């Protein structure tokens, strides 16, 4: 089981938090802080597994994380998950984000956290891995977006226009979180079917 999925940036600002166990909002923030503290002080070339998160508990649990440019992707899992498998899953997640957002960067996650949640929901459900095939995930997401667009119809057009205007003021930030940079070090599962 996956207990929680967290994304935060190099400064510990949460970009997505998904807990599959109930924690109060305060505890959630504490967990995020603690996890950031644990993860951020680790060097780049150490292993991606971490024990000793106190809050999200128990000796059975592990933090498995990957660091992409400005973002940390952290999965907290118990012993029923394969460590290397989860590492691959993170990779699939990031690649899927990259596909859906076209060259994903931190800004995409900041402004479209709801979309990130929707993508995640197609991969992990209630703490269990639902789908690992990227093409399948992307297909479902596209279909849902299409449905959304058809629902908005005419009425949605002016809103989209306004939001486009608003977005013109966005500060220019390099749009790349460089998933190519950190290639997968582990000889991974060749394919997910």
């Amino acid at each position, binding site marked *: *089981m996956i207990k929680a999925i967290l994304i935060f940036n190099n400064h510990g600002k*949460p970009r*997505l*938090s*998904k807990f*599959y166990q109930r924690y109060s*909002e305060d505890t959630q*923030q504490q967990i995020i802080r603690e996890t950031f503290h644990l993860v951020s002080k*680790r*060097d780049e*070339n*150490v*292993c*991606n*597994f*971490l024990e*000793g998160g106190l809050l999200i508990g128990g000796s059975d649990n592990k933090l498995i994380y990957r660091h992409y440019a400005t973002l940390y992707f952290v999965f907290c899992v118990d012993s*029923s998950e*394969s*460590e*290397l*498998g989860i*590492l691959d899953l993170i990779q699939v997640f990031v690649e899927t984000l990259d596909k859906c957002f076209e060259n994903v960067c931190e800004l995409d996650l*900041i*402004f*479209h*956290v*709801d979309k990130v*949640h929707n993508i995640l*929901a197609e991969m992990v*459900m*209630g*703490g*269990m*891995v*639902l*789908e*690992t*095939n990227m093409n*399948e995930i992307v297909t*479902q997401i596209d*279909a*849902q977006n299409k*449905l*959304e667009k058809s629902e908005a119809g005419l*009425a*949605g057009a*002016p*809103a989209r226009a*306004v*939001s486009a205007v*608003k*977005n013109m003021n966005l500060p220019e930030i390099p749009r790349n979180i460089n998933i190519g940079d950190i290639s997968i*070090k*582990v*000889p*991974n*599962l*060749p394919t997910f*079917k």
Partner: protein
Amino acid sequence: MALKMVKGSIDRMFDKNLQDLVRGIRNHKEDEAKYISQCIDEIKQELKQDNIAVKSNAVCKLTYLQMLGYDISWAAFNIIEVMSASKFTFKRIGYLAASQCFHEGTDVIMLTTNQIRKDLSSPNQYDTGVALTGLSCFVTPDLARDLANDIMTLMSHTKPYIRKKAVLIMYKVFLKYPESLRPAFPRLKEKLEDPDPGVQSAAVNVICELARRNPKNYLSLAPLFFKLMTSSTNNWVLIKIIKLFGALTPLEPRLGKKLIEPLTNLIHSTSAMSLLYECVNTVIACNKHGLSFSQLCVQKLRILIEDSDQNLKYLGLLAMSKILKTHPKSVQSHKDLILQCLDDKDESIRLRALDLLYGMVSKKNLMEIVKKLMIHVDKAEGTTYRDELLTKIIDICSQSNYQYITNFEWYISILVELTRLEGTRHGHLIAAQMLDVAIRVKAIRKFAVSQMAMLLDNAHLIASNTQRNGICEVLYAAAWICGEFSEHLEEANQTLEAMLRPKVTTLPGHIQAVYVQNMVKLYASILQQKEQSGEKEAAQEITQLMIERLPQFVQSADLEVQERASCILQLIKYIQKLQIKEVPVAEEVIALFAGELNPVAPKAQKKVPVPEGLDLDAWINEPPSDSESEDEKPKTIFHDEEQRHSRHRQPEIDEEELARRREARKQEQANNPFYIKSSPSPQKRYQDTPGVEHIPVVQIDLSVPLKVPGMPMSDQYVKLEEERRHKQKLEKDKKKKKQKKEKRGKHHRHNSLHTESEEDITPAHHVDIITEEMPENALPSDEDDKDPNDPYKALDIDLDKPLADSEKLPVQRHRNAETLKSPDSEAPPVEKSKKPKKKEKKHREKERDKGKKKEKEKKVVEEEEEKKKSSKHKKKKHKKEKEEKSKDKKKSKKKHHSEEEATESVQNGTLDDEPLPVSSCALAALTYDIQGNLQNDSQVTVSVIFENKSTSFLKSMELNVLDSLNTKMLRPEGSSVHDGIPVPFQLPPGISNEAQFVFTLQSIVMAQKLKGTLSFIVKNDEGSTHEKLDFKLHFSCASYLITTPCYSDAFAKLLESGDLHMSSIKVDGISISFQHLLAKICFHHHFSVVERVDSCASMYSRSIQGHHVCLLVKKVTFSILLERGKYSCLKCPGT
């Protein structure tokens, strides 16, 4: 209309959306909190609008704020509104918000049941999908029970997208509602062979999760999984299956043999490291006996550990630790590699290596390994890692009863060195070790005491920054050891003074308490020493010192400290008086602490078997009113050791009294089967205190300096130990062919040489490790470690048994009173089982709306108690009502009557404290229950349960009711209105049975009370008597209601139709919670909740004649007011 829509959407454009919110927060870095609170105010405004788009936009923003740590549970109801939007766009936003913030404590969650059910059966697969995803995050036991059947149906959906989600969510359903596991399991099993790989993978996933917790129930699936393993190409599935086999093989050894071959094949063929790794893991698990193969695994793992990839290194070590459990030898040969990993820069890897070390120590290398670890302790930066090191050192040293420790002085010095760690959380661990070693290793006591005295002397170093860190716990141990073994103390005076320092009062209370207690022990031994040497002055001085310093403890805020200190102060004052009279007191004082303490196993108390014929729950005497029994033990927060002392301490010591008590206590102990008798080791006897004979002889290792100046250095011991071993070896060479060692004496270490292997290094001094005592006939340890609260325990269900009818999943039911089953503890359990299941699928669609007008009826339930004139027995009656059936007679003239009736009944029914309709008498009891009849709208059936409460036989029972104009009992043809109806059974003692009686009604808008009599014959040995029991039946208006679910759109239409009449009422003084109140209304008055907004709820019910009854309940601040809203009634078009 169209114009309105366009206008709405133009307005919306300028609302702040999620992106604007995020941007705003980024632009207000300085006053973020203020900005967000502004935004929340805006959101609150938006939530009040009717436009669903605005609402969902607001909810979307709330979801973002939730991530930032803001509690958004206040908007739970709005989230439900957005969830029930018809458009997928909004629905998804609603479900996302719900999945982020709903949990079992969310009270409105019960309102979602029908919405979710509707979405699950939606023609749009994404509606279903989004509902399943959301539900997986917030499923509660109630939701699981109500929706299990729907989800099970979805497992066979045509679309794999839905199937895989439905399969996956079943795991969550099982957890919350374990009863669903057996009925759902066959279908789940089918899904293992689903044509779609995603569904298959989901099914494997669920079964693996289940089997991990209770593997034995899934053994029968092994062949199926075996087939999957050999055929599947999906690595995810393979990994899961292989992991599952790892859990199954320990239960079925034959499985292991079968697995080896395919696993070996996989290891050789796969290119996926993750799969390879799991294969190796499972091979380790299933290959407990084949040493050669695990050797191969170890070699493979060594390659992993040596890999430059840190992840593989980590996993290699992790797997290695699994081998360690079964084949420690094969791991030990890789010690070099593992020690090397201790120096790795990566903490995760170091921790794993530490774990391995535990299994690798031997007598030979223990000191070396611990020395290495101590170096790491000094270097370690993070407290977590340092704490981990500390626990590991202690674990390694203390494992298997200190098996590997050859020199306990070394170990004590290690422990003392560890006290220098700052900020560790494990002070108590060190303290426990010190106590354990000092108590159990007799030979070390002298050394331990000297070290502890030094610790006490340097307490300021330890206690300086102690309040936060746990290291001061060691002072607890130090004080106790110094006190208990004070005869070994050389500078007792100095130690006593150290313990009396004012600084001590800053320590935590429990430590001070131990200080106080052990001061007296110290004091006693000093006193004795002085008296023996005739230094009366010195003896008095020390008494004076105690009297001067003790008051600081008497003033302590800690009760325990205060109490002990004041007792002891009195004692010492008394001693002082005696001293002035020149009476020798030392022996008396020391007698207070006579007796050896034996280590007792932690579980000993639990293991004492209960002697035959002893019932621990029975009262020995009548329950005491107020006086306490004399031998009641005080509840202390201390260890057993202290407890025994504290009982010994007496404020007055009068010799006779003491002797008497001692005798009494001995007597008591001798007779007490639970008193743990001391070991045969010679006990200290207070009579012959002087002299040294009774002090356990300590074998002193002369080569080791007993007094280490300053803090001890464990390193010295390492060197000494090396020399010692070297010498040993030389001697051994010399004596090679001589006889084995003789008995060990003072210098045993030089002559106690084994001609055995090098591994068997002789301990430095004779160590008599006392085993912890266990009571005689201790029960074998068994279920000690099982946690009764394990949520997975409920899922330990035998899946191979055929399914019984009773286990079928509850079929779709409506949101009726049952889903609202509240914490209403008063609700009699009988009612549950009798709830009729109704299926009504009329109103199905849904829009949200807010009903304002409701109508209301109210049922009155009461109880009766009556006395019988003729006999002496009092008779009471139970009554209960639920629902009623009715027969069709008249359909007109309802409106106005019902209005009056309801108002009236509302007034006489107080909602908060409904009297339970239950009463009873010595002989018999009646419980009744009124049920409406769907087919027959002016008839109700009253089920009466007769219970015989006497010891006699009841027969010829006849029930008669005095009919009213409105309500008449239906009697058999031909009987007159005054005849009773015979009850068709007899009642043996203690038996109850149920009979049904039908009543016809003219009007359902009137509450009725009918008087009745039950006559019966009581037959016992002495003959039979005729008895009567009077009772009253209450037909309140609410008993003519039938719980009927209603959707908010239908509800809204109903309200808009204007056909309803209204009235309202306020009820004061209700003290129960709103939710509780709603549940009560639902339960007792057959209403169902249509929707609930904060403290305001719309409710609906229908009478047996088809009248709609709507009710609006509002909670008004301050006192809870019940506004029985706008009541009205109309003819239902349908009926």
